[in-house]
């Protein structure tokens, strides 16, 4: 189904015939004005053909060579991509292999880092007395002192004033 513009162009160019021509001319609201416009268009076409001839190409061979080079380069790139496609997009197996390797390296590094860290922390970490208490009724003179020795790596809770006991209390 041609649009009005297509039929209009064909009518100006004299390409409409028969029933199609009759129907189109009947649909024109002002046939006289349309005929005037067609004449102007044909005059313009004739004028352009006369005064704007096609220029002859001076370097025809060079132009053709350049064109062939361009076409060759454009067709060569997709061909290379199609042959090397396996390298750009790795197969699933290789992706799994690379992923597993990366994960293994990460795990090994984490393993050694986590193992060594507590050792260094522990060497500086001494035991600590948080609270200490004695019954003031039973031992009213008892005193409590706390010491931490980095040199000896010991923590001492020093309780003085506890009730002395006879030597028999030393039995196993």
């Amino acid at each position, binding site marked *: 189904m041609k649009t009005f513009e297509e039929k209009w162009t064909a009518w100006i160019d004299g390409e409409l015939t028969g029933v199609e021509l009759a129907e189109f001319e009947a649909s024109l609201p002002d046939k006289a004005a349309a005929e005037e416009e067609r004449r102007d268009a044909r005059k313009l076409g004739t004028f352009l053909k006369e005064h704007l001839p096609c220029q002859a190409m001076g370097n025809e061979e060079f132009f053709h060579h350049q064109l062939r080079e361009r076409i060759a380069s454009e067709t060569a790139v997709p061909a290379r991509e199609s042959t090397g496609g396996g390298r750009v997009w790795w197969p699933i*197996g*290789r992706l*799994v*292999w690379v992923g*597993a*390797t990366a*994960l*293994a390296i990460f*795990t*090994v590094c984490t*393993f050694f880092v*986590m*193992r060594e860290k*507590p050792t260094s*922390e*522990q*060497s*500086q*970490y*001494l*035991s*600590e*007395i*948080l*609270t*200490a*208490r*004695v*019954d003031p009724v*039973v*031992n009213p003179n008892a005193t409590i002192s706390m*010491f931490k*020795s980095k040199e*000896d*790596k*010991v*923590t*001492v*809770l*020093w*309780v*003085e004033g*506890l*009730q*002395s*006991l*006879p*030597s*028999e*209390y*030393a*039995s*196993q």
Partner: protein
Amino acid sequence: MQRRSLLLLGLLLALILGDVASAGAAQTVWSGLVIANNVAQPDPIPVELRGMEAALKKWFGYNQYKVIGQARKSLVTGSEDWMAQSKYFSLLVDSKSGNEAGYLLNLKLFQEKNLLLETDAKLSKASPLMIKGPQVGDGQLLLLLVVQ
């Protein structure tokens, strides 16, 4: 390719399981009741105290140390309790929590049924805990705890 992937996966699992196993491995806490005194001919220091001999002498000044009660407890969860006992003394140890660095302990020293001393302490793997108790005869009762 598949064989290599399987080997790698196996290695990975071994590492992870090894790490988990080492992290969950039990540590042993030795706790002892020790009588320290000065004598002309001291007995050799008990095996359990060998790593602490210099510190014991420096801090308490005695030349003989005798273990009168002890307990060795393997801690798995860190929340366990145990008791080191002699004829007249009991050291009740209640471990509240624990990790790689050490344990949070509640200690109670009983003389028969009497509570002499109670303390809360963080026992580090790197340093023993020494507690000076009451005078007993010509010596001194010491409480010692160490992560072995």
